[in-house]
């Protein structure tokens, strides 16, 4: 466990280095690019100093790491506000969206995967496979508008976009959730199929346990392990998916902040968004590993 914790330190360091390199890979003078041609030379000098661009690169990197460690992510060029405040403003919306999407994905993906595994090669299984393959081939910027077209424009059941109504969250959450549900369905199916051949399932059936208990208590519990791993890894794609989905549905979260900052060439904000999303992902994976050892005693005792 300690080894796993220490192992994330070089990764975090690398993430910082890569996000640092990011802003320095702007072609030409970054100050020129960010402020545009109409800026005065005084403005430029202020920004140059703010970004620490007049220092040698290693010192700049050191300053960047020190600032991030203190929770200082710099100042937005566009709104002049501290970036930490901007992120704090937007973070709750993204977390709400991701959490609902995750719930949707689990409540569709896991049951569908179980049914597919129990009815292997029958019509229910085939339907689940075709569905999950099709949805997997639909990027968020296509699935999103499609749901919007059907549920908002044609049926008029839900708001098209924005976040004014309580029901506004449903369409973006479905968009994000369906993609993950497709992966979960395939994963659950494969994992259940493997477990259902195990001896302990035969034993459970032989001693006359009701099929419901055999499936839900004995099989699912063992099949859950690889599913948790995949879920941890896929939570990252969920975070990355918010960038497009929030843009499609005008949902004011971190993803939309990132896209807006790109459009305004507000690169310190871009850098901060990328950094925060990557660090969240690193911690989610760490958390997944810890949960993994909790539900699988074998991992806990072998390491």
């Amino acid at each position: 466990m300690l080894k796993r914790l220490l192992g994330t330190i070089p990764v975090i360091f690398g993430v910082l280095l890569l996000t640092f390199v990011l802003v320095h890979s702007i072609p030409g003078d970054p100050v020129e690019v960010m402020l545009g041609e109409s800026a005065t030379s005084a403005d430029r000098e202020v920004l140059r100093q703010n970004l620490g661009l007049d220092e040698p690169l290693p010192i700049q990197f050191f300053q960047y790491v020190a600032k991030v460690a203190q929770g200082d992510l710099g100042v937005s060029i566009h709104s002049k506000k501290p970036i930490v405040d901007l992120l704090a403003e937007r973070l709750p919306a993204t977390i709400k969206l991701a959490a609902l999407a995750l719930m949707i994905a689990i409540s569709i993906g896991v049951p569908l995967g179980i049914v597919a595994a129990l009815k292997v090669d029958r019509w229910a299984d085939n339907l689940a496979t075709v569905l999950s393959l099709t949805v997997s081939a639909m990027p968020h910027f296509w699935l999103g508008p499609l749901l919007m077209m059907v549920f908002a424009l044609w049926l008029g059941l839900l708001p098209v976009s924005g976040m004014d109504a309580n029901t506004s969250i449903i369409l973006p959450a479905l968009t994000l959730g369906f993609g993950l549900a497709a992966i979960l369905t395939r994963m659950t199916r494969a994992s259940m199929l493997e477990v259902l051949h195990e001896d302990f399932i035969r034993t459970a059936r032989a001693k006359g346990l009701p099929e419901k208990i055999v499936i839900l208590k004995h099989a699912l519990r063992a099949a859950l392990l690889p599913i948790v791993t995949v879920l941890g890894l896929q939570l990252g794609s969920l975070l990355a998916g918010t960038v497009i989905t929030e843009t499609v549905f005008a949902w004011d979260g971190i993803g939309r902040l990132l896209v807006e900052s790109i459009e305004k060439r507000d690169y310190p904000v871009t850098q901060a968004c990328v950094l925060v999303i990557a660090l969240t992902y690193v911690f989610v994976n760490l958390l997944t590993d810890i949960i993994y050892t909790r539900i699988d005693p074998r991992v806990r005792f072998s390491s």
Partner: protein
Amino acid sequence: MKRWPIVVLFLWIFAAGLAALIDLKPNQINLDLILAMPQNHHWLGCDDLGREILPRLLSGAQVSLWVVLVVTLVTATVGISLGLISGYYGGMVDRTLMQITDVFLAFPGILLAIAFAAVLGAGLNNLILALCLTSWVGYARLTRAQALSMRQRQHVMAAESLGASVPRIMFKHMLPLLAAPLLVEATYSMAGLVIAEASLSFLGLGIQAPNASWGAMLRDGVRYMLVAPHYVLAVGLSLMSLVLAVNVLGDQLRDRLDVRN
């Protein structure tokens, strides 16, 4: 019936190639036909500037396939080479490389590609560069893992004791045995690249107007979804057919070549 993925893939390659040979004027504006529905001479209708959707779709397919081709060639070469070196030498080299790939994998999905494409500036070449910078990791990890176990195989040790050079061992004795899993990886990665290219151009980071790309067309299509649903449907279904075909092709290759994930 089983062969539909390869048929769909070749149809797209063929159609995109054909459209490149005969200029269908994908950028020609016709103000009388703004958002026209599909009709006789305009099979898929027209977009918001009265440009025909079908030639633009094919032009977008060319962009998409070109990006997939270039990025796959570059990233597969770089990733496989690094993976072979890492798996063959092990030790410090291996640890360093794995540490670097760990950092790249800490950025979920196409987040890093979006960030690089954004700072490099919009445009097709920068989009390709951004995808190259971020897509080599999968190849490197897979090759390294396979090479690591391959290193202990008898035929590799035999070649070594006969004095074969390191590049010879890597490329003649190890690489051919890695071909099957790498081919499957490459197929899945290509499907991912189609989506990645479309995502970046959806965000305005790809090829610039007036030239067509599927991502940019989808963005425009969404804007006119209420009055001209045929626009967004045509682009979305095209994208979906290509991605689905390549993904299913990957599944089929995996089963055929007996590759385990």
